[in-house]
Structure formats: C-alpha cells, structure tokens
C-alpha cells in the first residue's frame, strides 16, 4: 500500500527541512522516498499548503501507574463533570487533569502527538504502569525507571560499592521493568523522608545511609552514561518548589562534571529568594547555565492557570506542599523500600503572586534557552497543567502580542518582578517542530520517530495553517500513526495500539545472585515475580516492543 501526501509544507528539522513544499510517501506504515514516476499510488491525500510535521513526542508526562490512579480515585470531581461518551469505535471515559487511559490516548492523538513517556515508573509498580499504559490507545508509550531512593542502591552506595555493580543493578532494573530510561527524583530524599528527615539538600547526608544526593546523582548519571542508555539520567532535583532552589539546580548541573543530564520540570527548580515576598525568578541564571553547558537538556514543566493535581514521587516535598492542597485533601505513600508518591490537587491562579510568577518563570526559561534541541515543551502533566493546554502554551511561545495580553492579566507584582515583557523572542514553526518532535526523539534515541525521512515510522501530523497557533495546534487536519489515519479534523476516527519503547543495557548476571538474596531476605515479592516477562508485557495489549540499542561507553 503506497500513500502520498501531496503538496505538504514540511517541517522536518532532523533533515534541515524548514517549510519546504514537497510530496511525502508512505509504504506500509514507513516513510519512503518518492517512487519512480510509473509506480501505482494507492491513495493520495491532498494536503496542499498544509503544515506537515512528524508526530509529536512528549518526553515527560504522567499518564500511567500508581500515583496517577491514586489521583483519579482521590478526585471524583475531576471526572464527574468531564465524562465522555463512548462510540462504536471509541471507549468512554472521563477526566480533566487526570483523564482515564482511553481518553488520554485520544486527546494526545487529537493534538498530533504519537508518543508519550511516563517519567516516574516505580520498579515496584512497573507491572501496573505498563498494564495501564497499554490501555492508552494510539500513542506509543515508554517509561523511565525511578531509582535513587531504593534501599538496595542506597545500601550499595553506603557500602562504597564500585560503579560496576551499580551499573549492573541499574541495567538489571531497566531490563526487568522494560524501561526506556532512568529517572531520579529528589535523590535520596524520598527515602530520607521515611526516616523522618524533612529536607535534604545536595550535600546533606541521608541520616541512615550517610550518602548525599550528590553522590546518588553522580553514581546514576555515570551508570546511565556508561551503560549507553540513550536518554541521559532524567533528574527531578532536590528542593522542588522551594524559594532559592536555583542555587541547588546550578550546583546539580556542576555536580555531574560534564556527564549528560536531563533536568526535568526546571520551572519548579528556578526560584530565587529575592523581593519583598522572598520569592523571585532565577530563570535567567538557569537558562544561562543551560546555554553554556551542552551536556544539559531540560524540559520546562510550564504552569498554566486552572485546576489540576500534582502527582509526584517526591513525598518529601509533596508532604510539605499539602497545605496548598485545593481541594483540601492529599495523599502521601511510602512504597516498597523502592520510592513513594505524593498526590496534592492544586489550583494555579493568575491573581496569586506565586502562581503568576511560576507562570513567568516557565516562559522566561523557554525564551532564554537558546538551543531548541535542548529544551522540550512540557507542563509536567498534570503537575503544571494538564497536557491539553499545550496548544495554548505553543501560542504563548510563538505570539508575542498574545503573551503580552496574558501578562497583563496576572498579579501585577509578579508581572513587575518578571523580565518577561522585555523578552520579544517568538518561536518559529521550525523551532516548535524541533522542541516537540526532533529533539525529544534524538534525546530518547528513537531513530525512526520524530522525523519524516526514509525509514521513519509514518507518524505524521498535518495542520491547517492558522495565525492563531493555539487553534492550529489543537486541531490537526490529519494525524497518521504508523501510516494509519487516526485523526481527521481534530477527532479520532480510528483507534490503534501503539508500541512500547524500551532499552536493554547489558549486565553481568552475577547481580541476579545478589539481588535474589536481597529479595529473599527483605522483600515481599520474589525476584522472579518482580521481573516482567516480554510476553507478559505484550499480553497487556501493546502492538510491539521497540527495543533501542545501547552503546556502552
């Protein structure tokens, strides 16, 4: 089956294509070069003058697993008013800030997204996370295994175990849980909270294990690098949301001594302590550090005003944030000597000084980090806002007048203390294509996604050009997933199952003996049952496991 998209205006940054008019060809779900003139074309879509990009990739979105599901159970008010009818081809569901699995997949596809990465998969909860994400239709999924608060690793570090064993352990976990990457959340802090430590800065020691977050961070960054896992260590740093935490963020960047690092939802980690209220933007300093350290990439975790829920592995900071819960209820959970989770519903108000300034901080980061290949568009769904706000966020980046209009509506003191109105950068379509497609694909090592060149999977989004970028990005004319037309005029017309992306770093089998002993002595699950089999994973309902190569370093 050969399909042609005729007259497309293509943005494909991976191949340096910036708004070139051309025809695209798909054969059996794969992008192919223009065939010979006499080749029969089975179907042609006339996409003349329409903007065509690869399907978008969300590098950090909480779409499946324990904390997301606790958030659903906690918040019927986030679901009752937002119930969605099923149809002969689509499943019913509900939800605004934490939509149900089916609705999550449909809404992402309807915005032209074709892959989503769950950033906080607790190894102890991995089976659940994958089973749930298999119910997220259309889009591909992948997950980062959460490490750095597990008693096993902290014991290794406390015992001054060599890097080799740590690498073996990290690799074993990634294999056993079918992870695509590795994330650390508040290194050591989730564990320290279980020991009643209420804060933990980069160089403070964990009360029980005597190791510092710096140590954990370095060991994990090195493990990910040496194992050759494509996506660098994904870091949710210390002191999330704490005024003055920009210092910690800068120290974190310096701590890894040039190793690749991805700092996530950096907006929440870019705060100063200046001004009457002791809360200020340090986005400029953070952006400068990102600009001058090519080993660093970030995603923003933009705040958008409205009701949402924060769901994080960071029990230490979520517990502290419980006072701001809106509505007034929250959950913290210690989990399996592995990690934890905290769920706190939250209302971001434009008339609240702190919230308004958070909004500015995110935009200041977007506008001051120069290289779109190292900054990704996220709201840390649902923590800064639900992912459905992305089109509006894109407009804020592309449209200075709109930004100024919005800036006028926020708390005046916040506006005054932000440099936002002096930043006149407007993102181009090419830059948006980099930041939402090419760059995440490159960072994640997805060789056949995020571009439209020969051999790429035919994940394609076709937009009707519109001067209002929010309108354009919220309702693509067509979306193809692996060559199948899944969305027309912003509505899902066919549902498919995506793939699960994973990586398989090599390890010395000797680690299994150590782990088996550990599990037998301390756990309530045996090692064999902890591990998820490939057949089991596929049995959850994904169409395939796409394994991405590791290049050990």
């Amino acid at each position: 089956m050969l399909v042609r998209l005729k007259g497309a205006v293509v943005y494909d940054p991976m191949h340096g294509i910036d708004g070139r008019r051309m025809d695209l060809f798909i054969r059996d779900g794969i992008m192919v070069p223009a065939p010979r003139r006499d080749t029969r074309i089975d179907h042609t879509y006339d996409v003349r003058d329409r903007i065509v990009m690869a399907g978008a990739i969300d590098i950090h979105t909480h779409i499946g697993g324990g904390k997301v599901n606790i958030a659903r159970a906690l918040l019927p008010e986030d679901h009752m008013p937002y119930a969605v009818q099923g149809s002969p081809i689509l499943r019913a569901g509900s939800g605004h800030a934490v939509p149900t699995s089916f609705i999550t997949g449909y809404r992402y596809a309807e915005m032209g997204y074709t892959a989503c990465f769950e950033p906080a998969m607790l190894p102890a909860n991995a089976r659940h996370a994958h089973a749930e994400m298999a119910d997220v239709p259309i889009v591909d999924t992948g997950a980062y295994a959460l490490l750095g608060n597990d008693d096993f690793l902290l014991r290794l570090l406390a015992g001054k175990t060599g890097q080799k064993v740590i690498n073996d352990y990290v690799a074993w976990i990634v294999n056993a849980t079918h992870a695509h990457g590795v994330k650390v959340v508040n290194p050591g802090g989730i564990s320290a909270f279980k020991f009643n430590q209420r804060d933990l800065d980069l160089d403070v020691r964990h009360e029980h294990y005597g190791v510092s977050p710096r140590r954990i961070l370095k060991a994990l960054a090195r493990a990910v690098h040496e194992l050759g896992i494509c996506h660098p260590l994904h870091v949710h740093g210390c002191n999330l949301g704490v005024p003055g935490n920009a210092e910690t963020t800068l120290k974190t960047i310096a701590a890894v001594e040039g190793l690749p690092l991805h700092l996530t939802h950096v907006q929440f980690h870019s705060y100063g302590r200046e001004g009457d209220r002791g809360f200020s933007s340090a986005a400029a300093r953070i952006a400068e550090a990102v600009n001058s350290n090519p080993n660093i990439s970030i995603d923003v975790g933009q705040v958008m005003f409205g009701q949402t829920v924060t769901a994080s592995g960071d029990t230490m900071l979520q517990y502290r944030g419980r006072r701001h819960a809106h509505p007034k209820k929250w959950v913290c959970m210690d989990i399996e000597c592995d990690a934890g989770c905290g769920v706190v519903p939250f209302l971001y108000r434009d008339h609240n000084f702190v919230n308004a300034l958070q909004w500015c901080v995110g935009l200041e980061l977007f506008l001051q980090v120069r290289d779109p290949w190292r900054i990704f568009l996220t709201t840390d769904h649902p923590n800064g806002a639900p992912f459905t706000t992305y089109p509006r966020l894109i407009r804020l980046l592309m449209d200075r007048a709109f930004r100024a209009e919005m800036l006028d509506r926020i708390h005046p003191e916040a506006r005054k203390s932000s440099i936002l109105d002096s930043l006149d950068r407007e993102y181009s379509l090419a830059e948006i294509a980099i930041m939402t497609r090419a760059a995440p694909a490159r960072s994640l090592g997805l060789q056949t996604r995020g571009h439209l060149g020969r051999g790429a999977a035919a994940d394609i989004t076709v937009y009707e050009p519109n001067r209002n970028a929010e309108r354009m990005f919220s309702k693509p004319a067509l979306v193809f997933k692996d060559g199948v037309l899944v969305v027309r005029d912003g509505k899902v017309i066919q549902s498919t199952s995506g793939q699960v992306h994973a990586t398989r770093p090599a390890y010395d089998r000797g680690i299994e003996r150590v782990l088996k002993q550990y599990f037998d002595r301390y756990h309530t699950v045996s090692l064999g049952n902890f591990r998820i089999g490939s057949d089991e994973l596929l049995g959850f309902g994904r169409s395939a496991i796409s394994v991405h190569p590791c290049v050990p370093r």
Partner: protein
Amino acid sequence: MPVATTITFKNVVCPFCSLLCDDLAVSLKDGRLKAGHGACPLARHGLEYTGTALSPHVDAKPVPYVDALGRAAQILRSARQPLVGGMGTDVRGCQAAVALAERCGAAVDHMHSDAALCNTFVLQSRGGMLTTLTELRNRADLIVFVGTDALATHPRFYERCVWPSSALITSRLKSRQIIYIGDKLKTRHGTGRGRRGAQLVACNRHEIADILGALRMLHRGRNPATTGIITRARLAQLNEVVRRLRAARYGVLVWSAAELDPTNRELVIQAISELVVALNETTRFAGLALGGADGGTSSANVCAWQTGFPGRVNFTAGKPEFDPELYRGRTMLQSGMADALLWISSFGTDAKLPVTQVPTIALTRPSQRVARSAKVYIPVGTPGVDHDGSLFRLDGVVSLPLRGLRTPQMPSVAHVLTQLRERL
C-alpha cells in the same frame, strides 16, 4: 495409559487472599492440585477445590458453550439496566468486564465494595498517608491493629510481614511492638519470638472511633473528657499508648474495613487517618488497609484508570457515572433498578451468588449449586490456577503475575466476556 506423574511448581503466586504470597509449592497429579509449602488454609481450600458441573447450563440443564453464550447475550440485550456484579476476577477479567458494561449500558460493582468504599470515601474526603507491605516489614517498629487481628482474612500476614526472619533495619524488627485496639482479637500472634507481648486496648467495635479520637487529643496535649468509655483508668492506658506512638520511628496503623462496625466504620477509618496525619507532625506513621480479596484491589484499579472511578460506575447513559449509593449492586437488585445480573466470581469456592428474581448469568468456579440456580451458568477457570493473569495486592501498588498450573478445562472470565461482548 500414560503413567500419572507428579509435577511440582515452586514460587507459585496464591490468588486466594490479597496478600498474594508468592512462595507456594503446589503439585499436580492427575489434573488435581495439592498445596504444599507456604499454603495457608485459604490457599489450600482454593487450590484443592474441585467443583462439579463443568459444563455450561441454561435453565439448570447442560448446554453447549455457544448456546449459553447466546442466551447470555440475549438477556443482556433485552435488559434496560444490567448489573455486572461480583467482579471476582483478575486484571484482564476486570478490563473485559468494564468493556462489556460499557457496551451494554451496565453498572459495575465489586462484591466487597461496601467495605472497600469506606476507605475510598475517607480518601475522597481527606486523603491519607499510606504504606505498603515491604515498608511495614522492614521499617516499622510499631504496628497498631485497629479492629482486626488479620488472621482469618490474611493468614500469613504475621509470618511474611510482621515477624519476618530479617529486615533492612534490624533494630526496628528487634524492637517491634504490637498494639491491638478492639475486642475478640487474637493478640497472641502479636508476640514475636522471645519478644514482649502485645498491648491490648480492649473496647467494643463501636467504641474504636472514640478511642482513636482520644489518642489524637492526648497526642495534641489535650485531655479528653472522662465520660462514657474514657474512664480514668482508661485514660492512664491511653496515655501509655500515646507515649509509645510518639516514641515510634515508623508506625503503621492496620485495619480492615470489612471487620469494623458497619454502622460507623467510615468514622473509624477517618479517625485512623487523622491520627496518622497528626503523628506525622513529629515522627513517621502510615496506614495500611487490609482487604481487597476476590480481585477487589484489581477491580478498583482497573475501574479507576478506565472510567475515572474506583467502582459503582454505571454506563447506562453511555458514559461513566459514579454514584456509590445509587449503583450499589445489592440495592439495585432489591429496588428493581437492575433487571439483569451478570455475576463474576472466579476465586471463591462459595460463589456468593445474590438471591434475586432477575435473570442471572453466572461466571463462577464449577458449582452444582450455581448451575442449578442461575438462568445461564458458564463455569470459568481461576486465574493463577487454570490460566495466566495478574492481580493487584492489597496495597494497590504491587501487582503480581499469575500462572496457569494445569491444562484449563474452562475458559477465563476475560475470554467469555470478550466473546459475549462481540455478540451484543
């Protein structure tokens, strides 16, 4: 004739209570399972169960499978408001049940939801601080059992979690203390090997909430009025308990909603939650709810991610509607709101089939009694015995793979429901 050989399985996950112990040895001979190492009475009973009536029935008469399926589809098609009850199945079975309910506009309710929803209500009104089995096992130095001794419903809880042979923090295990609050509790198991005995705060079931409230006041440095059950002598005892609570490094309050007084269990769970939160001002505490057997935790999780609600969801309007009062299965049957019942119970040996006038489709383990009483009876296999699957443990975080141990003679719930859905 082949010689009957015995096959022994190790590290079997037991699906017959919500602890999901995964260290069982089970042997198979002549299609019969025999529980070995690690089997508690519940496991033994569940694994060794051999029901009769292996054939589907319609109107109490054996029929071919397709005929039973056809009749079931007919019942669901002609019903205005079907109810999918029981929900005693694994993750895949729950997924198939929700899909079916959506297709035929049914309500979904789990057989143990009266108890489970009390936990949900407290969660939805105030949240909570919770923990999981491995945390309790390794970190707790104080465990408070509220209104339960866990023995009947979770027979190996002590062996696997309370008194393990080793823990990550040895000192916590060595100094681990147990307190019971309630009556008719077997406190003997609260004494570890060579350790001091458990403390008992004896009170009636309906007094537990007051005791917990008094503890919270004492913790806050206030004296509760000495009226009713809070006598002077009692106050002295409670002061001692509070001293222990405050001295604990990591305390866990354990309860089982099903064993609390049905007239005020929500209050008790709320009081537990408040006490836990208050104690966290200075030290670490967390709650652990027992329960969730018969796939209860799996059903709650699957319903939450597929519908947005942990159960008692109705699809009659084509979209999920949550109303824990209105869509309570038993009430729907009694009030005549439901006019057809699809009952799923693939773990229990007693199918707990509700007595009702409405036409009933029963998917249960083989049972002569159910075969006689249901309009349509389709015997199904048990996950982890007859076929593979997965289940959530009581803490809702950990799920475990289940493996079929013998050649299945009956289809899985998921299989039957998927075929049924295709006929609607």
